[in-house]
């Protein structure tokens, strides 16, 4: 027992722990760094979660009612019933409404023809014209679907209309309420880890370089491996605290369900943190000063974040970009976070992504540690 204690104490007094403790103190004294470790990620996840929402709603709907009948007014009120459309004005002629659409006062326009009722009396189909501002492809496609749904409902309600032979009944699983924020939060989580991890790691690395204290590290009796490890371990531990904070925000503020094993998510977070540290260290071995590391990360981080499937689906990207996302740690992390948290999947489902994430982390940390060691030499 005593021997064990002495062994542990020896370890704690060892070179590695001395260096690691020095690193921890140094980070704590740098107020900007502590701030970007704790406050920034929490603020960012709140901002992203509240500000980004893909739902299509409150589209401004313009109407030209040439028919002026109870039936046409019933159709207009059907369209205004759901949250997608908001009646923004009625216009005298289609031309006037077209102008309103062109200067951006409307998103959707509907023209009900003057023979709307008469044609139906004769048993002929009446055609309602729908004008859509398709500049935003996604909004256009979804609002087109809503208009068609509303018309289909109207057709069903009209007396004498035959029932369609086949109907499709849809059920949304895993997220029946279609809560978009779950998708956004699980998507940006990986981006936040990599972004802040690389910034913090780069900052602690570059500081030694900028102030010339690398010399002092060289003079310590510690081996290069110990120096590198003592640099990485404290940053890793602090970043894991940040991860837990962000997870708490996701659960408490955004009510992301924790359906699967939280340890699995933590393991994935660990892989992501390591990758972030690797990226940051790698950048810092190229840069000469702190602002250069920041500038380089301006070019690394946006594509890493955007080509991850975190905010927009990977399937919607061009065919040649899709395989490239396999090299993106954030893409694997988002897959794991969504599968485990929202879908309740286990290791049997996410192991390819977890493996890929760990391999990527090993490569990034390995290469950057090697480059850092070479600088020490």
């Amino acid at each position, binding site marked *: 027992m005593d021997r064990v204690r002495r062994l542990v104490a020896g370890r704690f007094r060892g070179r590695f722990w001395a260096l690691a403790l020095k690193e921890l103190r140094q980070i704590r004294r740098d107020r900007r760094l502590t701030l970007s470790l704790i406050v920034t990620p929490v603020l960012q996840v709140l*901002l992203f979660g509240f*500000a980004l929402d*893909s739902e299509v709603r409150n589209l401004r709907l313009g109407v030209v009612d040439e028919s002026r009948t109870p039936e046409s007014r019933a159709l207009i009120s059907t369209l205004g019933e759901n949250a997608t459309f908001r009646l923004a004005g009625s216009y005298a002629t289609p031309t006037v409404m077209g102008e309103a659409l062109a200067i951006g006062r409307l998103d959707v326009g509907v023209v009900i023809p003057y023979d709307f009722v008469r044609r139906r009396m004769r048993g002929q189909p009446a055609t309602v*014209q729908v004008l*859509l501002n398709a*500049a935003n492809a996604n909004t256009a496609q*979804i609002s087109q679907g809503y208009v068609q749904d509303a018309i289909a409902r109207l057709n069903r309600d009209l007396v004498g209309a035959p029932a369609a032979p086949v109907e*499709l009944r849809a059920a949304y699983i895993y997220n029946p309420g279609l809560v978009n924020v779950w998708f956004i939060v699980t998507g940006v989580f990986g981006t936040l880890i990599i972004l802040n991890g690389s910034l913090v790691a780069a900052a602690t690395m570059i500081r030694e370089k900028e102030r010339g204290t690398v010399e002092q590290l060289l003079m310590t009796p510690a081996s290069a491996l110990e120096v590198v490890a003592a640099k990485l371990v404290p940053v890793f531990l602090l970043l894991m605290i940040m991860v837990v904070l962000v997870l708490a925000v996701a659960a408490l503020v955004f009510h992301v369900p924790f359906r699967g094993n939280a340890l699995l998510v933590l393991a994935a977070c660990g892989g992501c943190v390591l990758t972030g540290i690797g990226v940051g260290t790698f950048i810092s071995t190229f840069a000469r000063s702190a602002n250069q590391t920041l500038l380089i990360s301006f070019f690394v981080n946006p594509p890493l974040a955007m080509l991850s499937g975190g905010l927009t689906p990977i399937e919607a990207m061009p065919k040649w970009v899709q395989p490239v996302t396999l090299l993106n740690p954030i893409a694997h992390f988002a897959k794991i976070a969504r599968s485990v948290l929202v879908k309740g999947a286990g290791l049997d489902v996410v192991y390819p992504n977890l493996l890929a994430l760990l391999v990527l982390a090993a490569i990034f940390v390995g290469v950057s540690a090697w480059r850092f060691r070479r600088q020490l030499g």
Partner: protein
Amino acid sequence: MRRILAQVRKELTQIRRDPLALALTLVLPLALVALMGTSVSLTVTDIPIVIQDLDQTPLSRQYADAFRTSLMFHVVTLPPATAPEALLATGRVRAAVIIPEHFGREIRRGRPTETQLLVDATDGNTARLTRGGAGQVTQFFARQIAPERTRVPVQTATRLWFNPGRESRKFYGPGFMVLALSIFPPVLAALAMSREAEQQTILQVYVSSISAHEYLLGKILAGMVTGLTQCLLSVGLLLTLFGLSLAGDPTPLIVGSVLFVFCVVAFGSLVGAAIPNQAAAVQAVGLGGYLLSFLLSGLIFPIENIPDGLRWISSLVQARYYIVVVRDAFLQGGGWPAVWWAVLAIGAIGLGFYALAWRAMRRMQVKA
């Protein structure tokens, strides 16, 4: 005036001698716009789905074929003795269509039947699109097998304006051009300002005869030269790679661009003047220029969806207005009646930044 021009010349020389900064202004932003503008899209095609056919009749197979021929879906074969839910759980497919037993018999008897669609709603937007697409395929199939029963009293004729092909890149290309312009010109401006403070060359400025206005204007004009070059190159990219063309009167775009570049460079100068440390200044611009422009400008998702408590901030984000101007110039072509307010807002925000930057500089005194 001569002093302003001299300041501009000095700044431009400094930029030319710093290759990283030059790459920062010209080459890399274009690469980012090209990559992200073409890659970001919300409208999925080739959605992987699986069909479980419990009926196995000619009619049910015809229904399944309707999904196979649709451009929106990519049908994955269901392995024997597997439930479609298992494929949904692993994420191999986004949706499952389940055709019930007696599907063919019910249709032939003229009784309405139902098929089921299970959609993985982890991604709400894709789930909505999947449902809409599957509904259209079903309607198409219904019209095919029973044209007389699907004749509806009211039908729609939809016309897509401004972007009839519904190409996402035409919407996101202009957006990412604005984002790139919100990052790089202000970063350069902030660096140019805070460098003087960090390297103490600001003292030379203080002892010279130049006034705060002249000094600031010189810095800003130099930043605008590189910013407008980046802007022109980006417009060239939109006209070629993104297949866009000017939809109407180009003057709002020209005036708006000049004002916007002034605005972001003034913002960068303000940050640089307030923070005499290059790394901290770049980080501040990253927060204000990049994060706010990315989140609160309507770049990817509509501004109207932002909750009220946050949305008011977006009216102070210059990128929000410039995105309206650029998208209008290339897509809607509404011209001045459509965007005059946005151009005005950019100018007002720019003046605000300039006034603040001047306040930070005006005394031209060494800070204690």
